[in-house]
Structure formats: structure tokens, C-alpha cells
């Protein structure tokens, strides 16, 4: 098995999973199998790229930049692995907790295509192809949102759909303009071109549109209006996946395109703006979370705040900050997905996720409390859980740049995150239990426990994991291996 075959597996297994589900009247098992398969393939890619090697798959055997290329480097492989992991967890959780209504409406096939869109976006080395995978991902998410019944959900769906479509159009126009100006869409080719030409500033107006498109998808304030209403209406099994994938794809695109392709002379367009947006996003998101009284809503606002951290990592743009940002992405996807799953457990256990309607879970189900505590503490950044290393590396990076604003923001926003987690803990988990409660089911519990265990392992084994992130960041900062894999000796000859 060559790494190229693993790349193909990451793309085709979700398709086959979706096809299998469609052909068997909504049976979720093919999707689960496809997700597990692509998880295995992406783990194999993580191993293969661990030392900094990059593998390119020239689709159709056309040499780059003439055809489309899929590229697996350390960054892409890590993202593939964690996203597939959360997809598997979410599918299992959905099978066990969602009503048949969702299955009838093709939920599982759509989950599979959602995963496909994400995998494609991580792997592609072509700007327009990235647009296509974005649309695959986005339309799947639209369709999943549209399944949720209720007037509030409909309203939220509209907002979500329209804002994201505007972002897609911006992306499309930007891709067209960039092609018009440069004549190529291939990431490696674009990067080579920008490095070689003195006129790279000419694309800044087009990259502004691209920047806007990615920033909307990543939910940076003030472009994040679609998120706070949309996520809380989803059932937790699905919001876990949305939280893990959607904003992260936007961030991934920012990292990949701005942090690698558009880098000239050690910087990239709109970096200053990104820095300030990141600070505002961190602060605004966590303040939004502090004001909420529903677990789902608190967690949704946290996503925004955390996105700010990761964007800050990109804006700082030092090797340590980028490595920290990549580690942050990996950590966040697992932890955030798990927190939503735990919310699902709480809802199943107590019938609500509103803080004024639940109390005393520590008494009625200490296991759920423990399952909440692990990702919550990790998100808040307590050692030795994964979140600490993520925040800590950012703190270190900002202090070594003597960037006081960033450092203060990192510390204070972390404190406010603790405050809002404390609010959940004190209201829902502590206190005298009241109301009815039913026992939690085994499989969802085990799913969440597995993700919790991974959080702990990510923390305790953060040495090797951080080393992976460091390699991935080095690959972005010095994409020589990437260029070599795409355009160099691995490139097929012109027929």
C-alpha cells in the first residue's frame, strides 16, 4: 500500500459509504464502515508523513499544475485523522440517539458526504477544487440543518445558509480573479509564482475576498453571525460534528492558503487584520458564552472564542505559534466534539440542557460528570490535558514576540473560559438533584469516554503529538517538500 492509495481511500470510502447507505434504504452501517476505513487510512497517512515527508497524488496522471493534485502532508494528515475520528464518534452517537426521522431523511448518507467534503478540502492542492469540496461540505451541512424540525431551527437554517452562500460566492469570485491574474490554481505553482515575482501585492485585493470567505467560514467576529443561532438547534450528536468540522475547515483553509501559499518574505496578506480579528473573536466569543444559560449555547459560543485562539496562532506566524495552532486544532476538534456529545448524554439523562432545569448530576450520574470534566478542563486549558499545551505554546509564542496584547488576551480569555465552565459545573453538576432522570445508555457513554480518553492521551503524550504538529508547521513555513512532491520528481511526465 502506498500513501497515494491511502489518499484515494480517504476520498472514496466516504463516497462508497454514502452509496451503500443509499442502496440499503438508510442503513447506517456502510457509512460507519466508510468512516472507520477513512480513519484508518488517515492514521496511516499520519504515520507516513510524521517525519515531514509529503505525498502527492496526481489525479488522472496529469502532471501538476495541469491537473488537480491531492497532497498529504503532516498538517493535512493530522486534520484528516481527528476529523475522521469525530465523524466515527458522531455516527455512532447518531445511530443510538436520533429518532428514525433523521434516518429516513438520508442523515447518514449526508454525514458521509460531510466527511467527504472535509477530507477533500484537507487533501486538495488546488484552489478551485477546494471550492468544490467546500460546497460538498456546506451543502451537506445545509441539508442536515434542514432536517431539524421546529420554527427556530428553520430560522437558524436560513441565516446559516445565506451567510455561508455569500461566503461561497466570495470564494468563487476570488478563485476566478486569482486565476485571471496568475493563470494557475495549483497551490504549489501559485506559491512558486508569488515567490518569484515582485508583483505579488497585486493579488491583495482578490485575497481580501478569499480572506473574507475563509473568515466567515471560520466564524471570526464580526463575520460569525451564522454560528450562535445555528449550532444550538442541532441535536448534540450532530452539533458535535459541525463544531468539529465546519469552522475548522475555514481555519484550515486560512492556514493552508494564507499561511503557506500566499506567504512571501515571511509574511502573508492581511496578517495585521487577522491578528486583531483573532483578539476580538477570542474575547467576544467567550463573553457571549458567559452570558448564556444553556449548555448547548455556551458551548457554541466557546467555538467562536477558540477559533480566535487558532487564528491568533496563524497571525503570530512563528514556528512555535503555528505548531501550537495546529496542535490547538487537533485538540479542539476532539474536545469540542466530545463536549457536545456529553451535552447529549446530559439531555438524555435529564431531558434538558438548560442550566436552570438541571442540577446535581454529580449525584445522579458521577460518570457523566467525569466525562464532562475531562473535556471541559481541557478546553479551559488545565494541565496536563491537551488544551493546556495548546494555550501554553501560544502564550510562549506571543511572549517571545513580546506581544503583550496577545499574551494578556490568551490569559484572560482562558480565565473567562474557566468561568463559563464553572457556571455549567456549579449549576448542572453540583447542587441538589431535582426532577426525573433516566439512566444513560452504554454505547453513547462509551463513545464519549473514548474521546475523553483520547483527550487525556493527547495531553499525556503531548510530546510526540506536539512533535507532529511541529513538523506540520515546519511544512507550512518551508513548503519545499510540498513543492517537490507536487511539481518535482513525483510529477508525471507530460505525455
Amino acid at each position, binding site marked *: 500500500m502506498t500513501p497515494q492509495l491511502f489518499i484515494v481511500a480517504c476520498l472514496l470510502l466516504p463516497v462508497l459509504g454514502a452509496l451503500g447507505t443509499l442502496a440499503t434504504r438508510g442503513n447506517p452501517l456502510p457509512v460507519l464502515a466508510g468512516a472507520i476505513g477513512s480513519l484508518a487510512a488517515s492514521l496511516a497517512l499520519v504515520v507516513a508523513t510524521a517525519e515531514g515527508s509529503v505525498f502527492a497524488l496526481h489525479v488522472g496522471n496529469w502532471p501538476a499544475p495541469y491537473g488537480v493534485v491531492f497532497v498529504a502532508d503532516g498538517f493535512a494528515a493530522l486534520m484528516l485523522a481527528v476529523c475522521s475520528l469525530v465523524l466515527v464518534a458522531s455516527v455512532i452517537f447518531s445511530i443510538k440517539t436520533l429518532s428514525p426521522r433523521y434516518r429516513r431523511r438520508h442523515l447518514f448518507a449526508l454525514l458521509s458526504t460531510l466527511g467527504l467534503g472535509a477530507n477533500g478540502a484537507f487533501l486538495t492542492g488546488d484552489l478551485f477544487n477546494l471550492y468544490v469540496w467546500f460546497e460538498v461540505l456546506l451543502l451537506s451541512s445545509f441539508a442536515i440543518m434542514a432536517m431539524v424540525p421546529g420554527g427556530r431551527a428553520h430560522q437558524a437554517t436560513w441565516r446559516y445558509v445565506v451567510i455561508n452562500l455569500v461566503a461561497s460566492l466570495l470564494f*468563487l469570485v476570488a478563485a476566478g480573479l486569482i486565476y485571471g491574474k496568475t493563470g494557475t490554481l495549483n497551490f504549489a505553482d501559485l506559491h512558486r509564482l508569488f515567490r518569484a515575482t515582485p508583483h505579488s501585492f497585486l493579488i491583495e485585493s482578490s485575497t481580501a475576498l478569499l480572506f473574507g470567505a475563509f473568515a466567515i467560514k471560520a466564524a471570526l467576529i464580526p463575520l460569525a453571525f451564522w454560528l450562535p443561532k445555528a449550532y444550538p438547534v442541532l441535536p448534540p450528536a450532530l452539533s458535535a460534528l459541525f463544531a468539529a468540522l465546519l469552522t475548522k475547515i475555514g481555519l484550515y483553509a486560512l492556514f493552508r492558503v494564507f499561511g503557506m501559499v500566499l506567504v512571501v518574505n515571511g509574511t502573508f496578506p492581511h496578517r495585521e487584520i487577522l491578528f486583531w480579528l483573532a483578539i476580538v473573536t477570542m474575547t467576544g466569543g467567550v463573553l457571549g458564552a458567559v452570558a448564556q444559560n444553556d449548555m448547548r449555547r455556551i458551548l457554541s459560543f466557546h467555538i467562536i472564542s477558540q477559533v480566535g485562539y487558532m487564528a491568533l496562532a496563524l497571525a503570530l506566524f512563528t514556528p512555535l505559534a503555528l505548531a501550537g495552532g495546529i496542535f490547538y486544532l487537533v485538540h479542539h476538534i476532539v474536545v469540542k466534539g466530545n463536549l457536545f456529545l456529553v451535552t447529549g448524554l446530559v439531555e438524555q439523562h435529564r431531558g434538558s440542557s438548560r442550566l436552570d432545569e438541571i442540577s446535581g448530576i454529580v449525584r445522579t450520574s458521577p460518570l457523566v460528570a467525569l466525562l464532562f470534566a475531562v473535556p471541559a478542563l481541557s478546553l479551559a486549558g488545565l494541565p496536563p490535558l491537551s488544551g493546556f499545551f495548546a494555550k501554553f505554546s501560544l502564550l510562549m509564542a506571543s511572549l517571545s514576540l513580546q506581544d503583550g496584547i496577545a499574551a494578556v488576551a490568551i490569559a484572560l480569555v482562558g480565565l473567562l473560559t474557566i468561568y463559563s465552565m464553572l457556571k455549567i459545573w456549579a449549576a448542572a453538576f453540583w447542587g441538589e438533584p431535582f426532577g426525573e432522570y433516566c439512566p444513560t445508555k452504554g454505547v453513547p457513554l462509551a463513545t464519549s469516554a473514548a474521546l475523553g480518553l483520547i483527550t487525556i492521551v493527547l495531553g499525556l503524550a503531548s510530546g510526540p503529538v506536539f512533535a507532529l504538529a511541529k513538523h506540520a508547521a515546519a511544512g507550512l513555513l518551508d513548503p519545499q517538500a510540498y513543492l517537490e512532491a507536487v511539481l518535482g520528481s513525483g510529477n508525471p511526465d507530460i505525455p
Partner: protein
Amino acid sequence: MELLVAATIGLLVAAGLYRLLGGCRVDLIIGLILLSQAANLVILASGGLKSNAAPLVGRGQSLETLADPLPQALVLTAIVIGFGILAFLLTLLIRSSK
């Protein structure tokens, strides 16, 4: 001529934005339709405009005079994707009016 085309596309964008900000859901959809038409034209136009130069090879025209085929392929993909998304948006419109 380039100026004229660019201005026309600008007008399409303006019309689309105007409609988009109309507030009701029909406005949103019409706005998005106009904007995606404009986006397609932007891609085609920014690749360069040539008439009577359809990219069909083997008909005696020298390759240098043919229009750039890649933006056309991109626009084609974009049209189809936009088509799928708009169709889906219309189902949302129908549902909300149920």
C-alpha cells in the same frame, strides 16, 4: 469593451446585493441568483475575453487564438454547483411557506 463588460457585471452585482438586502426570503434567493450569475461572469471575464474562438481544437485554428478553456470549465462547474444549491434553497423556501 472590457470596460463595458466589467461595468455590466458590476451592475449585476449591485442588483444582486440590492435584492439580497431586501429582507424577505424571496429577495434573498433572487439576490443569490443574480450574484451567482455575476460570479460566473467574473470568472470568465477575468480570464480574458475573445470572440469567435471557441476552444474546439482540430478545426484549423491555431491554438494561440483560441479562448482560454479553463475558466469556461470552472464556470461550468460553478453553474452546476450553483444550480444544485439554488434548487435546495427553493425547497427551503417551499418548506417555510408550508
